[in-house]
C-alpha cells in the first residue's frame, strides 16, 4: 500500500494500556479527521464552483434547504438514506475482513428482480400478503448473498482479486437482469420501459407512521445495530477482524479464514439484496432499469466515510441521502447538470482518503509510542 515505513509497534505495557483508556488521540482522531475532511472537501468544491462562476454560498444553502431544512426535505433525505444504509453495510462488513467488495449494485439489482418475480406466483398460490412480503425479502437476500458470496468464494478458492471480480459481476448481474426483464419476465403492458409485472397494493411495503419514509429505513437501522453487535461483540466478528488485520496470523491461529470471508461476503450480499427488495416493494412497485440507480456504488462512499463502522453508517447514509435529495433543487435553481452531486461526492471521497494520512500524525495531538495506527 503506502511506501513509507511505519515505526515498529511494541506490545503495550501496563502503563500504556491504562493510558489508552483515557480519552486521548485515539478517541478524538476518528471524529475530527473525517469532519476535517468534509470541511476541506467543502472548501475544494467551493473553489470549483467559483471557477465556474457559481456562488458556493447559494449552493450550500440549497443543499441545506433541499436536504435538511423542512420536514419534507428530511423525509426525502431519509427515503434515500434507506438503501444507502444497506449498501453501506454491504461494503463495510467485507472491509472489516480486508476485502474491497464493489458488488453491491449487482446484488441490489438481482435481489430486487427476485423479489418482484417471486411475488406473483406466491400470490397466485393463495398465500396472504403478510407471508409473501417476508418471503420476497428472504429470497432477495438469498440471491444477493449468493451473488456477492461468489466473489468471496473466487477470492478464497482461486485467489481472484475480489475488487475487480465483484465489479465485473456487477456488470454481468445488470446484463442478466436486463435480459430477464426484457425477456421472460416482461410485463406485456410495459411498452416504453420494459418492466416486470407490477405488484398489487397489498404487496407494497408501506410508509412508517404517516411519514413518507418506508420501512426500509427501520430495517437498515436494525441491521446496522445487529451487524455492529456481531462485528464487535461476537467471536465471529472478532475472528473476522483478526483475519482483516493480519491474514497470516489468523491462518496460523487456525481460524477458518475462507469460511469467514464467505460469510462476510454473504452478509454483504444479503444487505444489498434487501435494499433491492425495498426499492421494488416500496418505491418502484416492479423491477426495471431504474433499479440500477447507483445506490450500490454510493454505498462505498458511505462505508468509507463511516470508517467501516456499521453504526456510523446510519448517520453518514442520512448525510449522503440529503446531498442526493437536494440534487434536483441545485439542478433547477443553479442551472447545473445532475452530475454536480457526483463530482461533490467524488471530491468528498478523495479528501477523505487523503485524510487517512493524518492518523497518528496530527500536529496538535500528543501521541504515545505504539499508538501510530496504520
Amino acid at each position, binding site marked *: 500500500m*503506502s*511506501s513509507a515505513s511505519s515505526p515498529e509497534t511494541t506490545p503495550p505495557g501496563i502503563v500504556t494500556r491504562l493510558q489508552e483508556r483515557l480519552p486521548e488521540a485515539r478517541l478524538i482522531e476518528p471524529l475530527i479527521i473525517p469532519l476535517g475532511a468534509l470541511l476541506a472537501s467543502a472548501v475544494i468544491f467551493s473553489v470549483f464552483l467559483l471557477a465556474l462562476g457559481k456562488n458556493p454560498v447559494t449552493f450550500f444553502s440549497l443543499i441545506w434547504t433541499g436536504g435538511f431544512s423542512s420536514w419534507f426535505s428530511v423525509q426525502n433525505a431519509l427515503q434515500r438514506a434507506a438503501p444507502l444504509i444497506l449498501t453501506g453495510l454491504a461494503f463495510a462488513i467485507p472491509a472489516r475482513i480486508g476485502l474491497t467488495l464493489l458488488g453491491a449494485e449487482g446484488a441490489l439489482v438481482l435481489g430486487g428482480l427476485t423479489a418482484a418475480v417471486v411475488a406473483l406466483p406466491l400470490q397466485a398460490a393463495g398465500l396472504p400478503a403478510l407471508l409473501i412480503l417476508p418471503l420476497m425479502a428472504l429470497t432477495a437476500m438469498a440471491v444477493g448473498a449468493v451473488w456477492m458470496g461468489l466473489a468471496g468464494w473466487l477470492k478464497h478458492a482461486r485467489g481472484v482479486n475480489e475488487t475487480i471480480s465483484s465489479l465485473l459481476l456487477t456488470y454481468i448481474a445488470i446484463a442478466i437482469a436486463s435480459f430477464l426483464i426484457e425477456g421472460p419476465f416482461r410485463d406485456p403492458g410495459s411498452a416504453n420501459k420494459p418492466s416486470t409485472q407490477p405488484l398489487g397494493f397489498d404487496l407494497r411495503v408501506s410508509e412508517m407512521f404517516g411519514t413518507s419514509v418506508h420501512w426500509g429505513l427501520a430495517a437498515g437501522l436494525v441491521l446496522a445495530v445487529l451487524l455492529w453487535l456481531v462485528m464487535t461483540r461476537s467471536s465471529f466478528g472478532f475472528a473476522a477482524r483478526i483475519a482483516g488485520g493480519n491474514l497470516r496470523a489468523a491462518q496460523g491461529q487456525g481460524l477458518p479464514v475462507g469460511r469467514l470471508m464467505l460469510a462476510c461476503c454473504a452478509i454483504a450480499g444479503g444487505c444489498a439484496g434487501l435494499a433491492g427488495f425495498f426499492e421494488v416493494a416500496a418505491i418502484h412497485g416492479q423491477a426495471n432499469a431504474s433499479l440500477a440507480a447507483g445506490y450500490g456504488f454510493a454505498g462505498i462512499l458511505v462505508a468509507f466515510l463511516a470508517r467501516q463502522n456499521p453504526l456510523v453508517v446510519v448517520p453518514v447514509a442520512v448525510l449522503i441521502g440529503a446531498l442526493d435529495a437536494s440534487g434536483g433543487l441545485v439542478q433547477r435553481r443553479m442551472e447545473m447538470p445532475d452530475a454536480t452531486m457526483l463530482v461533490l461526492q*467524488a471530491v468528498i471521497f478523495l479528501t477523505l482518503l487523503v485524510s487517512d494520512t493524518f492518523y497518528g500524525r496530527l500536529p496538535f495531538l500528543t501521541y504515545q509510542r505504539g499508538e501510530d495506527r496504520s
Partner: protein
Amino acid sequence: MSLVDFLIVFYAMIGGAIRVSTPFLFVALGECLTEKSGRINLGLEGNLIFGAMVAYAVSYTSGSPWLGVLAAGGAGLALGAAHGWICKLPKVNDIAVGLAFMSLGTGLAFFFGKPYIQPSAPRLSSLPMGGWSGNPQVQQALQVNPLFFVGIGLAVVLWWALRNTRAGLTLRMVGDSAASARAMGLNIDLVRLLATAAGGFLAGVGGAFLSLSYPGSWNEGLSSGQGLMAVALVIFARWNPLRCVLAALLFGAAGALGPSLQAVGLNWGYHFFNAAPYILTLGIMVASARSKSAAQEAPRELAIMK
C-alpha cells in the same frame, strides 16, 4: 446460421477486434507501465471517460480531432499525476484512491460533457487497409484507425525499453524491490509518480479513441467498465506490453460479438453477448489466478498480487 451469416459475423468480429481493442490497448499499456512501478491505478476507467469527453469537446470547438487526442492525454495525465501524488502520502490506500478517481473522472466527464451530447464533432479519419480485397465487408472491417498502429508501435517500444534502457531498468527495480531501489539512491515516489502520470496519459488517449473513432460520439454510457477490464487484462498479459496487444485483440473480439450478432438479426439474448467481455475477463481471471508463472512475473511490490 447460414455460411453467409457466419462470414458476416466473422468479418465483423475481425473488424471489431481491431476497432474495439484500441482503447483496451491504450489503457492496458498505461496500466502496465504503472503496475511495473509497483503501484496499481484502478482509476483508469475515470481517465478513459474523462479523456473521451475532453477529446470530443476539444475536437468540436477546435475542429481538429488530433488536438482532441492530445487534450485527452493531458486530462488523463492530470488525473494520473494527482493519483500518483496522493498515493505517495503515507497510510493512503492506493486501491481506494483508484476507486475515488474512477468516480471523479466519471463525475467530471458527466458534469462538463452535458452540452456535448448533441453536437457532432469532427472524428479521426481511418486508413482504408482493405483495398486489396474486392469484398466490401472486408474493406469495411479493415477501416483501421491510425491510433491502433500507434498503440502497437508503442507496445513494441515499451517492451524494448523496459528491457534495454536505463529508465526501463529503474522502473522495474522500483516495482520489484523498493528497498533495493532506495539503497541505489533512487527516488521511488518520483518514479511511481511519473509512471502513474504516463499511464494516465495513455488511458486518456484511449478515451479519445472511444469518442472520436469508435463508437465515435460522446454519451454517458460510452465506457462501461472498459478501463477496469483493461486492469484485469494486464494481469492476464503478465505485465508484458506485447502480450497486452494480443489480450486487447482478444477482448476486442469479445466486445464485438454482441454488435456483430445483432448485425445478422440475431437479437435473442443480446444482453448476454454484450456481457461477453465481462464474462471473458472473469473467466480469464479465474483461470490465471494462482498460476505460478503469473506470480513469478508480477512486480513484487504490487499490492494486488500479495
